[in-house]
């Protein structure tokens, strides 16, 4: 499994570094952003985004960090990572012709698929937690105080959301043979979903409503996860994994 671990570790590290850089830049910019909030509120182009800025006005640094880290950084970069990490899981092997060799070892298909799923899932989720763990320290640099535990809960919610995207892509990879087409289709869907999110009349039809700024605000207020949202997302991922296993069991190299 060394090859797989190294491969996912490298990708996870790169993703974590970019995420951390985005987070650090955003937090260090917070004092200027805070001071210019009234002007920014006037410039916001859509009602949905206006609602976000309103939330920052009310919630201060916590809402700002939630927006910057979870909603912007993790959704954009994490969503792309989830797609890119899953697209080649099986389809990549088929595409490069290594599927037969991969399956010919004396290991069960269930085991090799679950190992690959788990490695990719960890590569998607761990950077979210790792970067979130630095938030209290980064906020201290701009003279703001924060506790770690709410950010870890927020990371859990965000990870569950990203894993749903990862699992859907993984399922497509388990049945497909063209990783680039899978990635293109998934990324395009995510862009469309985000566009939907920004339209006030259609925003509630977007999957990004499942990990919205409001959700993170609620987690911070209650100090617990909202299982009405997380539960179905976890079930969706489990269903995708089960379907991937079923397809993979019968897959011809």
């Amino acid at each position, binding site marked *: 499994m060394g090859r797989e671990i190294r491969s996912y570790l490298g990708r996870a590290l790169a993703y974590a570094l970019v995420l951390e850089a985005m987070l650090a830049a955003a937090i260090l910019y917070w004092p200027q952003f805070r001071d210019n909030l009234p002007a920014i509120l006037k410039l916001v182009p859509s009602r949905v985004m206006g609602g976000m800025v309103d939330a920052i006005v009310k919630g201060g640094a916590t809402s700002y960090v939630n927006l910057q880290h979870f909603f912007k950084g993790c959704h954009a970069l994490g969503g792309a990572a989830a797609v890119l990490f899953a697209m080649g899981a099986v389809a990549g092997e088929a595409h490069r012709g290594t599927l037969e060799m991969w399956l*010919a070892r004396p290991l*069960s298909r269930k085991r090799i698929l679950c190992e690959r799923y788990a490695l990719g899932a960890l590569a998607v989720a761990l950077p979210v937690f790792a970067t979130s763990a630095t938030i209290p320290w980064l906020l201290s640099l701009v003279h703001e105080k924060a506790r770690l535990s709410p950010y870890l809960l927020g990371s859990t919610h965000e990870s569950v959301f990203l894993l749903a995207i990862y699992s859907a892509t993984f399922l497509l990879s388990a049945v497909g043979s063209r990783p680039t087409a899978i990635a293109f289709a998934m990324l395009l869907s995510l862009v469309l979903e985000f566009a939907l999110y920004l339209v006030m009349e259609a925003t509630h039809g977007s999957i990004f409503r499942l990990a919205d700024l409001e959700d993170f605000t609620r987690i911070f207020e209650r100090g617990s996860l909202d299982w009405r949202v997380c539960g179905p997302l976890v079930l969706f991922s489990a269903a995708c994994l089960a379907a991937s296993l079923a397809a993979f069991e019968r897959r*011809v190299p």
Partner: protein
Amino acid sequence: MQASAQPIPSDRRIVTRGLSRSFGKKVALHPIDLDLGPGQIVGLLGPNGSGKSTLLRALMGLVRPDSGRAFVDGVEVSGDGTAVRRRSTYAPGEIALYGEMKGAAHLEWLLRGRGREAGKKARAIASDLGLPLEKKVRAYSHGMKRQLLLSAALAPEVGVRILDEATEGLDPSRRGVVLERLADDAARGTTILLSSHHLGEVDRACDVLVFLSEGKKIAEEAAASVAERARRLVRLSFDEGVEMGKVSERLSRFEGARVRIEGLRATVTLGSAEPSTFLSSVLSAPDLPRPRAAEYGELSLSDLYREIYGVEGC
């Protein structure tokens, strides 16, 4: 799954009964029965697309059969075939490796689940073949990649080895080393099933030859008997203008002769391996045009199969 009614012999290493597989409307493998014993080297021969790889994959559990049953080293192939793959090794015919890995690491990857001893032995085999394990696989030639797969397939102590296109891409000296190793392995009781679409590459190493064409088993016989039949082949070439229909009719009158016409060539399978009587009769027959050339005793097994079964591509 329906299987043929023949019983399953317990002393065989590879047994199939009515094993078949289709891909859509294309029948890749018609129901096939095989019985291969311990210590046998069996050559699975046939042109591209004849169903060899499908059969080998079905035996390894990589392709689920539509019907029939298969047993490898006493274990029935079922589910995803993990139990079978633990008791056998397999080298795929298609060569696609991870170019970014070094040879040694790739060997280790291929042998995951086989134990340390297999790893040591595989490195020793690779070293015998002169494979530079410290180099990245992307720097390997086609033949070196084949050697890497073979090193992994030949190392573990198992009862059955299944090698798809085992010697394809190997230079003659390395092919010799590999075939020698297979012979040693078989002498210790391992059953080896290897496929090739080049008949001449593997036939000398095999005890039994199984010939597939369009997914059907069209012949299975001892390699020695096939070679003996090859010696009974005589090919006569005639000049332009000769009526080959009449030639065929006349040649068929020789006792035990079977005739196949291809253009201006007539290939005759004789009743015995002694062609001199036949040739002198041909030359003295007044109602038979004199052949321009006669070849005998040097036709390859591929000629034999082409002449007998009319199959091209071997």
